[in-house]
């Protein structure tokens, strides 16, 4: 069962249908292309489509958001580069939509809008814009690798965590309003990869992969919760089956030697006994050691230690890696 504060959850899989899991309602694919490209890795945003969700009975998702929320998602961003102003010739950052929550009125007021912006450095930044006119950017991050974004706010401040590190807010505009949905209902519609401002020279569709989008109606800046979502998965924070669990992890590492040094060997016709320079005595069947090949392969071939006449060959005269019996003895 989901925690009470969870109001929206969108996880992608191999299915051609997408369901928002809190309301159990479908997400609609709109645009010129109705075929989605989604897998367990996430949803690949397309140039000719976007996603729209209108909640239960098309009345929007009942978010119950007033002054707090937490929005998180994984993003594998791309950078289409920098645009050039056709009039001035100046370089322009390209804006790409990510996700937007809008109210259900015909005016479709944008309540929370998340966009990406390209930078001359080749990196991107994420912008959080709210209805009251307030916006703030994350620090720059590198495209071409997975990043986790965690955005949370209350009535006085907004925080952006990228890959679990709290960013210093960049380019803040306006003052954060006390309430997110001031004067509007908290039943919200959702768009993914759809710009409410239209498209132009410096606004383009996003080509990133997005996954595990969740929305809480409370502020949460718990480092341990962020860690659980990133390391273990979003269910470990929102599903009560997992929220009361702890996971202890341990990587057990071993690296076998690539070469061993043998200083003695005897064959009793059943087994081969090998004495190693580190004092270990190994026993193996002839087949086992022939197929291990680890001490009879490249080096001795190169140095000429194994005569060509002893190499096993298949019908195409290719080296089998096995030693060839010669006069009923194995000469090692």
């Amino acid at each position, binding site marked *: 069962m989901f925690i009470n504060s969870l109001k929206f959850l969108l996880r992608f899989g191999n299915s051609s249908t997408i369901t928002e899991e809190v309301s159990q309602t479908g997400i609609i694919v709109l645009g010129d292309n109705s075929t989605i490209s989604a897998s367990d890795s996430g949803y690949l945003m397309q140039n000719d489509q976007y996603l729209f969700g209108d909640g239960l009975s098309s009345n929007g998702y009942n978010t119950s958001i007033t002054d707090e929320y937490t929005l998180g998602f994984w993003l594998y961003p791309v950078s289409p580069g920098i645009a050039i102003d056709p009039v001035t010739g100046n370089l322009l950052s390209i804006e790409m939509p990510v996700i937007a929550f809008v109210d259900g009125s015909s005016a479709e007021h944008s309540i929370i809008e998340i966009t990406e912006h390209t930078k001359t450095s080749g990196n991107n930044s994420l912008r959080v814009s709210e209805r009251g006119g307030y916006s703030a950017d994350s620090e720059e991050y590198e495209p071409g690798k997975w990043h986790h974004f965690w955005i949370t706010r209350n009535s006085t401040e907004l925080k952006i965590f990228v890959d679990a590190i709290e960013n210093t807010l960049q380019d803040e505009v306006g003052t954060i309003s006390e309430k997110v949905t001031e004067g509007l209902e908290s039943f919200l519609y959702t768009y993914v990869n759809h710009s409410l401002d239209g498209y132009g020279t410096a606004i383009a569709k996003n080509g990133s992969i997005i996954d595990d989008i969740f929305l809480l109606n409370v502020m949460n800046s718990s*480092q341990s919760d962020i860690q659980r979502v990133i390391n273990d998965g979003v269910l470990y924070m929102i599903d009560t089956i997992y929220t009361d669990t702890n996971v202890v992890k341990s990587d057990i590492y071993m690296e076998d030697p690539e070469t061993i040094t043998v200083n003695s060997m005897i064959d009793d016709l059943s087994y081969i006994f090998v004495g190693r320079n580190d004092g270990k005595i190994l026993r193996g069947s002839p087949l086992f050691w022939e197929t291990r090949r680890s001490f009879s392969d490249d080096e001795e071939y190169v140095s000429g230690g194994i005569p060509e006449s002893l190499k096993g060959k298949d019908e195409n005269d290719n080296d089998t890696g096995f030693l060839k019996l010669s006069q009923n003895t194995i000469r090692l």
Partner: protein
Amino acid sequence: MATLKLYLTSLEPDLNQTVYSQSIGGYVSNSLVYPETTLSSTVGLYDVNLSLATPSSGSWSEWQGIEYINIGSELIKIPSFVNGSIVVSQRAYNGIYNVHLSGDVVRAAASKELLNDVFNDSHKQYRCVAIKNVSTNSSDPSQEQIAYDLEVFIKQNSRNVNSDIQIALEKPSSEYISGVSTSWSTSSVVDTSLIAAYEDDYFKDAYLQITNGAASGQGKIVASFDRATGAFTFYNTFSEDYNYDIVPTYEVLPSPAQRIKTGTISPNVGSDNVTHFFKPDEFTTLTFFEQASVFNVSNLSPNDVMYVWIERTIEKGSEKFLDNDFVLNLRYKVVE
């Protein structure tokens, strides 16, 4: 919240296991699978600067020469290690990126320590490690210290396609208890409060340790337990030097796992006490279900243990044995 750690096993109780490949069952040793310390600062997904707290031993000597460290599920390649300030060579060496918080456990994953290159004719080798609840109640008695419904699974199997890991769980036949003796001698400890509480020989082969007085820290292996009298009798006697007039407190550690003669012999699996070998994943975990007739082995109270047998199989014809590691995850509920 309970704290669980992995320990090597040893032939005798209360020993440091210095030969890691001899962790083939028996008692819980005093040696962790790997030396460990903690992070001093939070590490984001792609950060390469790590700050490590000085180990509790006060020295980095055990860490010299290591090539990899393990935090969470992530294996990190590091340059020649000198002290607690590291610029890593490669994050996510095993392909798993994790976020790490200040205070998270960092382990020195020393190469060729536990599993080695000696296999049997079926190309298998076996090791046994112990999961121990090392929580103590002293600092915050109100805090939950029991790991409920312990589950074990392999988060990541070997990255070498010619190497395969399976695990089995073995439960100790008796759990940890502590108490106050009503009388004791060189060869036995009696606790009349245990009369009729356990079956005869319930604690056979477990390690009993005195926790107060001149004999504090001294322990003996239990040869028999008498249900009628509450008496523990030992294989070997305590020294005559101890003062037998005091009222000793004692603890009995969980009974040992089976011990195999060499790491190339399979333990006995598929019994009431030992599961078969499996490759459990996050969704199909390995656990013991609660059984009414015995203590709830899936709930690890402080000092309780569970043993994990590791079976490693290599394929015939493997030319190289690189990228060998696996991630063992222990999942438990923090509330009942």
